[in-house]
Structure formats: structure tokens, C-alpha cells
């Protein structure tokens, strides 16, 4: 690349596109290293465009913001984690709670993204990054060799040049697409998350969910989305309860039920309705999720550019683990570190930026994704979605049903009968079991 020409016209060292968790962490790292950083956000403030399924696991922030839990704007600490399996009339819940997650250094927390992301971006500003809001990036600036040298924005006189562009522009990442880092976009890799935030008095939430003070509950649900593959969730904020569903977009299109109707069905389920009764909708929101993990990930490095967070499909949607913000924060941090390295070494080519790939590969960011590469497809498969919940619920119902004077049937017999009744082939069950074991074991 033509270092000298760029040197003269650069407006800053690093442009970070998007003030979400990935962008803010990238900006914090780069600015703290002394680089001049511009953080561009299209909303009126960071977090104003962002929503999610409710739990953030900020352990990765230990490196960046020591004792983050003393200042982060969280709603409740998740001390109770439930996985719920629903059929139309049944519910099976695995419920875990621990005191440990309710005190420092904590584990997961519920938080409003407009609060959390705004807070994280304030750390980027404190580190010296310049945050420019209400500014939409419209494309990449490239030199005649195709090297990314900046971005165009929707403001007059809106071109901005830098040595490295870090694209944290979210799930739709038009920048990664423009840079040719995505080979294709396939609708089957995406899900749609929709959510209602329901207002309820804190005491009512505490009582219904069995928590006190800042303790909170996260319930992940499978089998509640009708004919559409996906899942549901219910979690507690301080004085609101969020209830929502995640839906496979490709399946949704062929259905008669719209997203809000699927939420309504979930809200009316006998296992859910008592939890949220009387809650008034404070906000309805929607967002697309890059669900497919490794199968959809783009190249994350090109000459002069890195991609992080949802833009790089770094979202772990693996059934019992549903994470995104932590992957975004980590990948943003590593992108920031790699950009610092490259700028200092005077080589911002893909080769000079390869430290990003190494960091992703050496840590949970890609290792979790590799280990769980088959999980997203398994979790969203028709069998897991539509056949297994009914079978499992029926098995448990028969186990606990007392049919006196008949003696208790053996579990194996029930299992066999219910598997046949559900129309599940034995070899499919074994195969799915093995896939599950390899992923989660």
C-alpha cells in the first residue's frame, strides 16, 4: 500500500464504525494505546439501535474495566437460570440457582442495551476516542489497489480517512459485504428476535420469580414458537419483565403467524402467563441475529480493515448457550489490539493485521464456535424443535402420573413408546444425541 500518500490525508489512525459493544471495546483499546480514534454511531447515542435477548456476560471486561460491576448500568444479576421445554399444554423446566452469581465478580446480568452500550461508549470517549453520533456510514473509501483507507458518511463533506477501519456495523454489515468479505448472504443463517418489555412493580417481579434485591432470572425456552423454528425467552429487569422469541426467518415466511402473534401465544402459555400477568408493554423491539456461527462467518481481515461483533457473525446461538455481547466485546478488543500493532509496525495490510485472527483463534471467540459448530443447526432442526419437546414432555408426564392400580411402567418402555408415538426414528435420535454430545460434552 502507498503509506506516504495516506499518511498526509489521514484524519485519524483508526475509524471504528458502530458504537455497540464491539465498536466501543475496539475504540477503548486503540485510544488507550495512544492512537487517534473516531467512533461513528448512526443513532443519536450509542445503544439507541440495539436490542438483544437479555443477558450480558461481561467477564471479558475484567481486562478493560476492572471492577466493571461497580459502575455498569445493569438491571439484575442473573442468579437463576432456567431452561424450559414447552408443548401446548406442558412445561418441563431445569432450574438452577446459585448465590455465587449474585456477588462479585458476578457472572451474567440483564441490562438495557441503550444503557449498557452508552456506558461502554463513554469509556471509549474517556480513553480519548472521538464519538460522532447521528452519522451513518454509507460505504468504504479504497485506494486504487483496493486497500480500505476510510469511510464515506451521510454528512456533507463526509469522507473520513484512517489507516485502519474496524467495521462493527452490526448484523447487516454492509461494510463487510462491500469489502467482499462475505461470499454470500443466506437467509437460512439468520433469525429474527422480537421482544416486549413489560412493566411490573419490582415487588411483584421478586415474588413471581422468587428473587430478592438485584437477583434476576433468565429463562430460555424451546418449543414455544409454533411451526416456526426458534426459541423463546423470559427474563427479569428491575421493574420490567422481557418476553420474546427468536424465529428462523426462512421458516417464518412460510407461516401464517406473524412474529407478534407468536409472542402473544408464548405470553398466553399456562407456564408463562402467571409470570407476566398485568404487565403493560413499555417497548416492543426487533433485531436480526446472525445465528449460524462458523457456517456463516466472513473473512474478518482485509487490507486496512477488520470486522468484529455481529458484523463478523460472532454470535453464539447454541441452545443452552446464547451469547453475543461477550463475543462482540472480545472481538472488538482483539481488533483494537491488532490495529494498534499494525499501525505501530507501519503495516496495515491484511498481513500486518493478522494478529486479529491469531487472537480470535487462541481464545474462546473462535474456539467456542469451533466446538459448537454443529449446535446451531441441531438446535434449530425440525426434530429438536417440533418432535423432541413433545416426546420428552410426554415421557416425564407418564413418569410422574400415578396410574394405580397399574404398577409403574419402566422408563425404557415409556421412552420407546413415546419415541414411536412422536414419529422419531431411533437412528435419528442416536445421531442427534451424538451431535449434541460432541458439541456440549
Amino acid at each position, binding site marked *: 500500500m502507498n503509506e506516504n500518500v495516506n499518511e498526509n490525508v489521514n484524519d485519524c489512525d483508526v475509524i471504528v464504525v458502530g458504537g455497540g459493544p464491539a465498536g466501543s471495546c475496539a475504540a477503548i483499546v486503540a485510544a488507550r494505546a495512544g492512537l487517534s480514534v473516531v467512533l461513528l454511531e*448512526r*443513532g*443519536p447515542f450509542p*445503544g*439507541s*439501535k*440495539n*436490542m*438483544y435477548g437479555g443477558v450480558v456476560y461481561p467477564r471479558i471486561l475484567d481486562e478493560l474495566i476492572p471492577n466493571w460491576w461497580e459502575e455498569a448500568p445493569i438491571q439484575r444479576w442473573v442468579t437463576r437460570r432456567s431452561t424450559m421445554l414447552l408443548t401446548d399444554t406442558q412445561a418441563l423446566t431445569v432450574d438452577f440457582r446459585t448465590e455465587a452469581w449474585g456477588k462479585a465478580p458476578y457472572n451474567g446480568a440483564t441490562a*438495557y*442495551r*441503550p444503557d449498557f452500550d452508552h456506558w461502554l461508549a463513554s469509556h471509549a470517549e474517556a480513553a480519548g476516542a472521538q464519538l460522532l*453520533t*447521528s*452519522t*451513518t456510514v*454509507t460505504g468504504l473509501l479504497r485506494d486504487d489497489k483496493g486497500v480500505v483507507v476510510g469511510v464515506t*458518511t*451521510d*454528512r456533507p463533506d463526509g469522507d473520513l480517512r484512517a489507516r485502519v477501519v474496524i467495521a462493527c456495523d452490526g*448484523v*447487516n454489515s454492509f461494510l463487510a459485504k462491500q469489502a467482499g468479505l462475505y461470499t454470500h*448472504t443466506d*437467509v437460512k443463517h*439468520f433469525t*429474527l428476535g*422480537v*421482544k*416486549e*418489555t413489560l412493566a411490573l412493580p419490582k415487588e411483584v417481579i421478586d415474588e413471581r420469580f422468587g428473587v430478592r434485591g438485584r437477583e434476576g432470572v433468565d429463562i430460555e425456552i424451546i418449543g414455544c414458537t409454533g411451526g416456526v423454528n426458534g426459541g423463546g425467552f423470559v427474563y427479569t*429487569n428491575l421493574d*420490567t419483565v*422481557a418476553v420474546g422469541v427468536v424465529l428462523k*426467518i*426462512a421458516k*417464518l*415466511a*412460510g*407461516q*401464517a*403467524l*406473524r*412474529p*407478534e*402473534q407468536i*409472542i*402473544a401465544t408464548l405470553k398466553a402459555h399456562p407456564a408463562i402467563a402467571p409470570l407476566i400477568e398485568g404487565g403493560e*408493554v*413499555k*417497548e*416492543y*423491539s*426487533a*433485531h*436480526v441475529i446472525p445465528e449460524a456461527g462458523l457456517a456463516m462467518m466472513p473473512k474478518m481481515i482485509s487490507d486496512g480493515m477488520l470486522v468484529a461483533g455481529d458484523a463478523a457473525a460472532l454470535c453464539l446461538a447454541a441452545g443452552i448457550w446464547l451469547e453475543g455481547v461477550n463475543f462482540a466485546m472480545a472481538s472488538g478488543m482483539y481488533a483494537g489490539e491488532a490495529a494498534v500493532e499494525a499501525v505501530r509496525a507501519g503495516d496495515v495490510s491484511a498481513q500486518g493485521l493478522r494478529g486479529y485472527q491469531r487472537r480470535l483463534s487462541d481464545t474462546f471467540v473462535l474456539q467456542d464456535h469451533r466446538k459448537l459448530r454443529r449446535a446451531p443447526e441441531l438446535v434449530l432442526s425440525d426434530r429438536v424443535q417440533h418432535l423432541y419437546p413433545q416426546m420428552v414432555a410426554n415421557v416425564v408426564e407418564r413418569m410422574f402420573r400415578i396410574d394405580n392400580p397399574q404398577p409403574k411402567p419402566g422408563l425404557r418402555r415409556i421412552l420407546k413408546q413415546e419415541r414411536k408415538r412422536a414419529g422419531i426414528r431411533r437412528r435419528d435420535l442416536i445421531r442427534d444425541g451424538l451431535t449434541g454430545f460432541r458439541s456440549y460434552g
Partner: protein
Amino acid sequence: MTLGNFLETMETAEFRVHPEAHIVVDGAICADCTTRECVVACPANLFVPTSAGGIVFNYEQCFECGTCYLVCTQAGAITWNYPAGGHGVVFHRT
């Protein structure tokens, strides 16, 4: 959920509407579309079939999620951009 209820639900989200639409739908292409995935999938229910056989898109209450262009099977039917900076949906508690 009735349509009236859903309109009330949509009222809970804040939208800073720009005078120009950020997403443009080509009704001529939609007129030939029989599957109309967007009508079911849009979480804000903004794609409305018209009696004339086309589809009208109301951009004002758009969540900017991207579902419509992802799900659309008709090339060129949806021209999708983010709204001008500072405009569009503004979340408060999500």
C-alpha cells in the same frame, strides 16, 4: 393479537422519522410475487398488500432490522438502506 392491539404495541417504540424513506419497495416487482414473505416476516407489519395487487411499505415505524431484504426472493424489489444518521428507531428499554 388483534391489529388494533398491535398498533398500540408499535406506539411504544420511538421513531424519529426522516422525511425521505430509507427503504424503497418496487411495487411493480411485488405485483408478480406470489409468496410475499415480507408481509408475514416484518416484525413491525409494515408491508401491506394493496387491492391493486402491489405492496405498500410504510417506512416510518421500521426497526431497521433487515428481515425484509433477507427474506425477499424477488431481485431488486427492496432497496434497503439505513435511515439518515440520528433518524429512525430509538430504543429506550430493550
